[in-house]
């Protein structure tokens, strides 16, 4: 697969969150959240269930709006951006959902080719070539899977198809929501390797939400650890493993 075209931000920053606060009624979901992700970097957001990890991805995609704070994606301030600008920014991102979120009425070929059919005027032959390239990138035999429906695939294969769909339009940022949850250790390792391969070969920036410490340490350049909607640690995997912070130690154990 060819490399993505990087955006021309001199700071190299593709995502920035600053002082984010989000509440549902009286429940504080996120509080004082702030971090940035540079081009080609993989950031893991680690934490237990219900601490607001996935909500961070929704904020970056503008599927949720914060009560206060600032979200900047690829140079766009999402708060002041119009609907068209937000859709345009989303076209430069790819998202892999926890449950894969493949369109169950479409074949694998149509699922993976969906962003190209929607947003480009490419001839079908070129779309077919790109879909096959993306499926091969995620180690799937396109001859075997492209005509199947999502319901005919295993969980691990669905995840890989979801990754193929997320990368087929060559995005600059990839977002992963629990990419390895519910998968066996071997498939988990395969998905982790794929995320590393995406960074190495396509130079994509990734934000990976996970609760799996081992996975996070394998794939991340930096890790942000969340507790009750707040970041309690941010640093490299090595720094996290050596941290004396009580909550970090408790989480690692």
């Amino acid at each position: 697969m060819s490399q993505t075209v990087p955006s021309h931000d001199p700071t190299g920053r593709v995502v920035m969150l600053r002082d984010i606060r989000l509440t549902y009624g009286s429940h504080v979901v996120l509080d004082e959240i702030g971090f940035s992700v540079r081009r080609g970097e993989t950031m893991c957001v680690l934490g237990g269930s219900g601490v607001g990890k996935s909500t961070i991805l929704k904020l970056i995609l503008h599927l949720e709006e914060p009560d206060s704070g600032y979200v900047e994606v690829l140079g766009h301030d999402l708060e002041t951006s119009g609907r068209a600008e937000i859709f345009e920014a989303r076209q430069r991102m790819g998202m892999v959902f926890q449950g894969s979120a493949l369109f169950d009425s479409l074949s694998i070929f149509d699922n993976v080719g969906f962003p190209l059919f929607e947003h480009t005027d490419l001839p079908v032959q070129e779309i077919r070539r790109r879909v096959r390239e993306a499926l091969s990138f995620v180690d799937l035999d396109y001859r075997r899977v492209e005509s199947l429906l999502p319901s005919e695939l295993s969980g691990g294969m669905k995840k890989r198809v979801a990754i193929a769909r997320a990368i087929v339009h060559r995005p600059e940022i990839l977002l992963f929501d629990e990419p390895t949850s519910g998968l066996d250790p071997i498939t988990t390792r395969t998905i982790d390797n794929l995320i590393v391969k995406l960074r190495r070969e396509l130079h994509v920036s990734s934000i990976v939400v996970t609760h799996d410490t081992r996975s996070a340490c394998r794939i991340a350049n930096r890790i942000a650890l969340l507790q009750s909607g707040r970041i309690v640690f941010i640093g490299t995997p090595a720094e996290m493993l050596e941290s004396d912070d009580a909550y970090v130690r408790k989480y690692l154990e």
Partner: protein
Amino acid sequence: MSISRASPIRWLNEALKAAAYRVQSYFGLLGRVLASAVTRPFYWRDLGQQMDTIGVASLGIVALTGLFTGMVLALQSSVEMKQFGATIYIGRLVGASAVRELGPVLTALMVTGRAGSGMAAQLGSMRITEQIDALSTLGVDPVRKLVTPRFLAALIMLPVLTVIMDVIAIGGGLLIAVVKLDLTATMYLRSVYQSLAQTGFIFRYIPIDVFGGLVKPLVFGGIMALTSCYYGLNTRGGTEGVGRATTQAVVSSSILILASDYFLTQLLIALLIE
């Protein structure tokens, strides 16, 4: 003491706010659907698929409903009319009832039960499996892609289905009139024509009743599609939520169709007949 007095007021306040929010988002959805119906991109393929799902796939149930409604109307009214020797007017009764009221309303209710529930369930499933979020993240407006084709397909297909229902209901009445009431087909059909012609014509050739009977399904189709999609898109709480959304969609659509039928009838009488 003050808490117990304040609680019902607070509860009422919250309930009213929630209701106002629902009404606002319902009409907000309508606004977005109308805006995306007249701006690019258009999803012609999805529109075609939905016309097939709403229209062609509902033909059987609409035809059966029309046939038996027409037959029952003729049969029931014949009991009373026989006493006055007025069975020759059966066609008037069947024709007027089918074209003015029963055709549009029963078609809308049947399509709501069949296609509206399907819309709510499908969009609800897509919501809980994050497929709608996936559409958004792929830079596709879910309202434009999912709701607008369903809305337009319902607007186009409901009047077509209503005409089919009307014709079959009149045919059902004809069957009873000829087989059980010993009327000739000509007598029956002349009687049907007289009932439709009595309120006059619009655009020279279209009976006002037929015109009114086509305006109603247009509105009913919009209500059915919009309400079903609204509940589908707002599904929460897993598979149980999908079931709840489907039920709410059918119940709310049916009530809105029946209530709007009254106001539409008032309006059409005021505009076209009076």
